[in-house]
């Protein structure tokens, strides 16, 4: 693990000022649960860690009548148990509760999960392992160990909150030293395994999530080997509006969360599945076999379609209260 200086920022302004001063040579830490793993495997070697966890006004859930705001430092445990979140849409709590383990959820944050680094079986390894395997595109090489290609990195976006929140049309608040702005959550991501996050942008901090839309029905499903600990191999989240419009977001199988949606009257399963297949750039970079994961995209979409229908009801699905 590389040595790093460690600063606990007392305020957002201090954190942003530090970031600007050390631009390109620092890493933000919120819960640190993803960062520490990457530091241990020497995938992250920034000489400065700016700890955001002490910034008081970045946490907590604020519920209004027509809107819900989630501070970026809200822990996943808080999200999973927050009554306000459950009232808004239980899918958010379900998604949070599906991440990591109870201990990790007490530390890991909402913002950190949205910005969790993309993963690949051939990349998320120790320095010695990567040295033995030869360099990959993401590890200062010129060939992808998965596909043998030299253009595209297909590392997987593995945030489990992102699919749920994108399906719910969440927006994010981004702040840098000069301005505050808002963006659709899906615009945070790029379909580029090397640079999977377009936002929050250079030396900016994601400070909060805003929700203003409540669907009529929702469905959340996650594929993994065990019912705890594991990163997702496939996450499918869907929301259906009263008018029949459907937004489905798929995580874990492509470089970014994949949004497939259909307006009122247009939604049908074959079209959604075809769009998902077209958009998901799924390669053999997870411990579950590629053919199985592709197969499960179809299976999950089929189940989701059923559950979003009028009569569907299951533990991981439901009607918004």
């Amino acid at each position, binding site marked *: 693990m590389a*040595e790093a200086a460690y600063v606990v920022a007392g305020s957002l302004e201090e954190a942003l000022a530090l970031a600007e001063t050390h631009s390109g040579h620092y890493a933000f830490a919120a819960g640190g649960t993803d960062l520490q*793993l990457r530091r241990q495997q020497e995938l992250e070697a920034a000489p400065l860690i700016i700890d955001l966890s002490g910034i008081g006004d970045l946490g907590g859930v604020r519920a209004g009548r027509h809107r819900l705001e989630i501070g970026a430092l809200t822990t996943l445990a808080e999200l999973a148990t927050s009554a306000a979140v459950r009232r808004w849409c239980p899918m958010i709590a379900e998604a949070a509760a599906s991440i990591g*383990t109870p201990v990790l959820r007490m530390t890991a944050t909402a913002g950190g999960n949205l910005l969790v680094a993309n993963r690949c*079986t*051939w990349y998320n*390894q*120790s320095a*010695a*392992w990567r*040295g*033995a*395997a030869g360099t990959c595109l993401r590890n200062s090489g010129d060939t992808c160990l998965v596909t043998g290609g030299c253009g595209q990195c297909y590392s997987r976006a593995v945030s489990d909150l992102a699919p749920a929140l994108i399906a719910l049309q969440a927006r994010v608040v981004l702040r840098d030293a000069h301005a505050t702005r808002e963006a659709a959550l899906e615009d945070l991501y790029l379909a580029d395994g090397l640079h999977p996050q377009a936002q929050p942008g250079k030396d900016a901090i994601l400070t909060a999530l805003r929700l203003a839309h409540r669907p009529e029905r929702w469905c959340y499903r996650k*594929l993994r*080997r*065990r*019912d*705890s*600990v*594991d*990163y997702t191999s496939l996450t499918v989240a869907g929301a259906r509006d009263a008018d029949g419009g459907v937004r489905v977001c798929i995580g874990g199988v492509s470089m970014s969360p994949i949004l497939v949606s259909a307006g009122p009257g247009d939604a049908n399963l074959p079209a959604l599945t075809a769009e998902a297949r077209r958009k998901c750039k799924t390669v053999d970079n997870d*411990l*579950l*076999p590629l*053919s*199985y994961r592709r*197969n*499960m995209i179809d*299976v999950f979409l089929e*189940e989701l379609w059923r559950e979003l229908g009028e009569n569907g009801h299951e533990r991981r699905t439901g009607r918004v209260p």
Partner: protein
Amino acid sequence: MTAAVGNPTPLRDAAAKVTGRALYAGDYSFPALLHVKFLRSPHAHAEIRGLDIAAARQAPGVRAIAVGRDLPVTFGILPIRPDETAMAVDKVRYIGEIVAAVAAETAEAAAAAARLIRVEYRPLRAFLEPAAALAPCPPEERIHAASRHPSNLHKEARLRFGDPEAALAGSPLRVAAHFRFAGVTHAFTEPHATVAVWNADDTLTVISATQVPHYLHRTLAKVLGLPLHRIQVKKPALGGGFGGKSDPFPHELITAYLALRTHRPVKCVFTREEVFLNNRGRHPTEMDLALGCDRDGKLTGLFADIVIDGGAYSSFGVVTTYYNGVLMQGPYRIEPFGFRARRVYTNKPPCGAMRGHGAVNPRYAVEVALDMLAQEAGLDPCELRERNVLPADTLTVGQLRITSNGVRECLRAVRARSGWDARHGKLPYGRGLGVACGFFISGSALPILWNRYPQTVVHVKLDFDGRVVVFSGAADIGQGSDTILALVAAEILGLPLERVQVESADTRLTPVDLGSYSSRVTFMAGNACRSAAEKLRQAIAAAVAAEKGVAAAAIVFRDGQLVTADGQRLASWDEAVEIALAGRGAFVESGHYTSPKMGGDFKGAGAGLSPAYSFGAVVSEVAVDPVTGRVRVVKVWGAHDCGRALNPLAVEGQMQGSIHMGLGQALSEELVYQEGRIVNASFADYHIPTAVDTPEMDVTIVESRDREGPFGAKEAGEGPIHPVLPAIGNAIFDAVGVRLFELPMTPARVLAKLREQERRRG
């Protein structure tokens, strides 16, 4: 009345371990401690052409660097094939093999310096799969050039009793299948750690996370060239082994060597990835098995052809090779019987002994084949098994001597408790029940090293303070052997448990015990402890009898008192101690155990011999999702004949732990390799079932009271695992009608089978 034996007793070290007070090897620290880090091979198979340590030597904080040529003496847990060296000497044989070691003032400095070591390799042809390794190749290509075989074959074991092929050909019913098992590893909690200290009196102390202090002691002497009497090996609190700490290891030898060279204490603590690279887990296995029975379900013969993938070194491999075959000859009467088992070297981290050593994979094959036969014969799978189980006091086809045998009671217990008769074959599609039995050795009757010493010795000491101290070399690795020894001594001496203290696994203080492997400690050290405590009791009784004018034989030891048969108090324990020690001082009484002579007169007759065998049965209930192929184990009923449960709490714990470990190998655990690199060398990616993946368990202890075990006890640490895996496989068949011949039974594999079934049915 004091009843130590048979009382559910929390393990002696439990409170210290769960409150963080227990000292593990990695917790030990000394002034001027150096830290060691390793440079490991990035090649699966390569010749070392050059090694340059100049830059590393100049790096800050570096105090010593060791390379292969510093420690060229070969070693291995089995004397038959010492093919390991502490570091690679002329070539590397797997990715992750240690090439050099740096001792520095901090672990970070050692790691940084290790990276400065330059090695020039000439890559050699890598053998990564058994099929390639079995093909003839020139000596210079072989992983071990000195091999007697024209290929990378390490060991071939064959045994035949009768003509199984002919019997199977003529059998009214016969099933055959090809089975594949992925390699799995122990995944214990505590990573390997060793601290070595060169003492002022020119002796060496090695504190290490080991299951086998005695073999480590001998190997240190051999490799370092030090006399045995100048080496002390201590095993501190240990966080799990399951066979993964039962070889003497390169890192232990290197750490000791660096202490010797620098005359400073040196410490080595593995990362989790290094634990995976060290491996010694269960061999990846391919097996063809044929099993037959007549129309009444009586077994007519068995033949198996087995190939196990040993990795780069031999470790326990010769034993594993035999166990894969010989441990199929129970718990049923199977005659004729034959097998060929071959272990091959490959360029992967070495495999070795793991809980249920050598018998877990073949047990899966046999029990699945039995289920298939039951189906063909139209018999209930429990009934078919009952018709074939061995009785007590018999010999198996290969002359393993069976004494006590509770397999029938085990089978009946799980059958009744699971509601088998009302539910098997009758649950809705997607739900199913499966059954399996098993058996295992209660200690290997043959020691690893042939010599005239007993297999274990226990001293029991009594001094003026009235405490009894048991000295044993046995390694408590979390299985509770210290607690067992205390229970045995307390039972014999009629003492409350708190009067008995245990000093164990310190080769300077404690007499030799061969170690915690092959499920031998309760049986062997328990018997030795019993014998030592009985001698002490006789001595005390004789002294008190003389003083009080009663017959020694009439004195009863109970509740910390000495009383006559009719309950008349003769002396308190403390009074008796003073009487007994008068004019002579402390007692140290000794007991020992050596297995009786047993077995047939043929090559390989010693394999699988044990003074007693444990037996067990499991029923599992599964829910299979036919859309995703996912299997959820809903509940497991286990029954185990451990002879007698000296500590029922520990036996239950071993049974539950075995169910959990078996569940992992059955459904989710496997070492995944890519060109010789372990892809999932972390607990994030090596999928041990978590608490939420673990089913409800119902465990039943069956006590057959073995005549040779201490108070009737046999083993309980390994035998309970064997039936777990096939009970799950057979339950999947009951649930959805497909047979899984490949482990782990992942959702992808189950789904592929279901698709195949759909295609067959059209």
